[in-house]
């Protein structure tokens, strides 16, 4: 792979949500540590996959990256510019560069707006991108690019299927010619036969427009298919990060190994022949994460040191970064 210039750099990002009690005398009784010190970089034209189970903080990460939620601490740089301190005109300019595609194609489109208005609305806010006279034409172009009939621009969202609605969401995200699109579970609400269509579309658009994706999903196969590099999250932290090949072929963190091992593989001939790791119990609450390594309560390798010392996300013996005191390669994907 050619080395890529960093487009986006995220450093030690933290987002805590207060847990409050009481109505008249509201007081904070704790913090949900949704994102707790996440760092990564994203190059131009690259896709970074983010995988993890519910509650690992991957959607909060998306919200903070889009500045829909202010971070508790940490920094992010877009083309070297600190993103979280942007104000006024500079903020508006930056917003054009980063767009988001959301999970649920049923609730992320306004049911009272026509498709043309939904896809064209970004131009109302950023008129410099498309002058009024050319807007209708631009909207048609966008619908065409995502594989929808441009003649349908006067229809309403309910007249489209789930997969088509997700295409509308993608057209809206493309409208301002962004450099980065954050995709938060863009295909998980779709049927298998439709999911493939939308994944292919995302890959085509990336090639055509040189887009970078932060691709957030819980489905490990979907993430592998689209990602150059992958970050695995557990309880607000990145536990392992590397190229798609490193994470799937040579995982070193026990959680990544357990996650990969739990994915059912569509081949009955492999039944009973796979390296099976079964975790016990559920993910602990992010309000009170375990001390030291957050995964230690479910980990078969846990020792005393895991409870007292938090493992750093660093590379051990020259491999890719993995946040485990006892990181060791174990291939679990057949």
């Amino acid at each position: 792979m050619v080395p890529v210039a960093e487009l986006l750099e995220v450093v030690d990002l933290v987002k805590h949500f207060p847990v409050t009690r009481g109505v008249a005398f509201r007081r904070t009784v704790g913090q949900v540590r949704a994102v707790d010190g996440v760092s990564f970089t994203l190059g131009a034209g690259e896709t970074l996959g983010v995988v993890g189970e519910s509650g690992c903080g991957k959607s909060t990460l998306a919200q903070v990256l889009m500045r829909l939620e202010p971070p508790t601490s940490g920094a992010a740089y877009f083309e070297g510019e600190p993103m979280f301190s942007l104000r006024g005109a500079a903020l508006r300019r930056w917003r054009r560069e980063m767009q988001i595609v959301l999970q649920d194609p049923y609730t992320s489109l306004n049911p009272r707006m026509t498709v043309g208005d939904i896809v064209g609305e970004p131009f109302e806010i950023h008129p410099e991108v498309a002058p009024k006279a050319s807007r209708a034409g631009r909207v048609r172009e966008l619908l065409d690019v995502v594989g929808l009939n441009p003649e349908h621009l006067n229809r309403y969202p309910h007249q489209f299927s789930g997969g088509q609605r997700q295409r509308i969401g993608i057209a809206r995200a493309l409208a301002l010619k962004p450099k980065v699109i954050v995709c938060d579970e863009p295909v998980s609400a779709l049927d298998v036969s439709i999911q493939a269509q939308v994944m292919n579309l995302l890959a085509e658009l990336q090639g055509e427009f040189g887009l970078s994706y932060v691709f957030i999903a819980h489905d490990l196969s979907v993430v592998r298919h689209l990602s150059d590099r992958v970050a695995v999250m557990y309880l607000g932290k990145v536990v392992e990060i590397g190229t798609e090949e490193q994470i799937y072929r040579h995982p070193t963190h026990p959680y990544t190994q357990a996650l990969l091992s739990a994915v059912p593989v569509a081949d009955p001939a492999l039944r009973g022949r796979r390296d099976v790791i079964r975790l016990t119990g559920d993910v602990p609450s992010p309000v009170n994460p375990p001390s030291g390594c957050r995964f230690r309560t479910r980990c078969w390798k846990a020792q005393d040191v895991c409870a007292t010392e938090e493992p750093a996300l660093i590379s051990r013996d020259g491999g890719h970064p993995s946040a485990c005191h006892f990181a060791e390669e174990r291939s679990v994907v057949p």
Partner: protein
Amino acid sequence: MLLEVEDLHVEFRTRDGVARVLNGVSYHVSAGETLAVLGESGSGKSVTAQAIMGILDTPPAFVTRGSVRFHGEELLSASADRRRAVRASGVAMIFQDALSALNPVFTVGFQIEEQLRVRRGMSRADARARAVELLDLVRIPLARQRVRDYPHQFSGGMRQRAMIAMSLALDPEVLIADEPTTALDVTVQAQIMDLLAEIQRERQMGLILITHDLGVVAEVADRIVVMYAGRIVEHADAVSLFRSPGHPYTSALMRSLPRLDSKGTALETIRGLPPSLLRIPPGCPFHPRCSRAEDICASHVPSAVRLGFGRTSACHFAEEVVGGPRG
């Protein structure tokens, strides 16, 4: 035969017209066997299960033809009392969304005990003891204490376990599991599937597993029926189905799946959308999306072609499909 569905037709009479949701579905399950019903949304896989259980909402749903037999006894014409008795101890069902399937205002224990007291005439104390045993069986930690919890105090995986415990209370011979792990995280899904498989083996239950997940199917099913637009398009044992799918829809589904073991390039897609059940295309319902469709497919509904080893495929070109290059 333990449980048998034959030529089942169900329609939904809606304001927009009649939706033909099931158009002649037949399958069966024997003791100790896992039958997977595979299909996408709207294929009719859940409606078939609801018809078996007698829990279809009528109106709008009407069974217009067909038969559901449990140990040879016709259920569709049975009295409401008789059906309730079969639901109680013959055929049990668990649902995808355990949170909405459990009653939020009663404790988990009470909901398990209720059936034991009503159906088995157990005392409160005996029913409580049995409920603790059942929660223990599905590996709820500290079952003796957790039996007094309300559903919202359980995690998603524990709720699904509690629902399995509840469904096992009256020792059913058949368990229908409708997308039992779809709402769960993958590490918890693996735990629940292992648990279901183990219980099924020990009790020699018939298990009907309804799912859209080809991976789950590959790991547990003995036999598989694939549904599309209210019909069974293919029926085969698990190994043959994955080795050489006999219907273009099955084969296309498999090729459109991203893989865990390789990165791959572009995915093959199935063009278009599943049909509206209000306007199912004439001929083979899959023909508008099928890559090998010919004129006959648009005019004649294919009947099930026998492919050997008990396999069938509802395709005019089934023999060529199954003999074709591996998907």
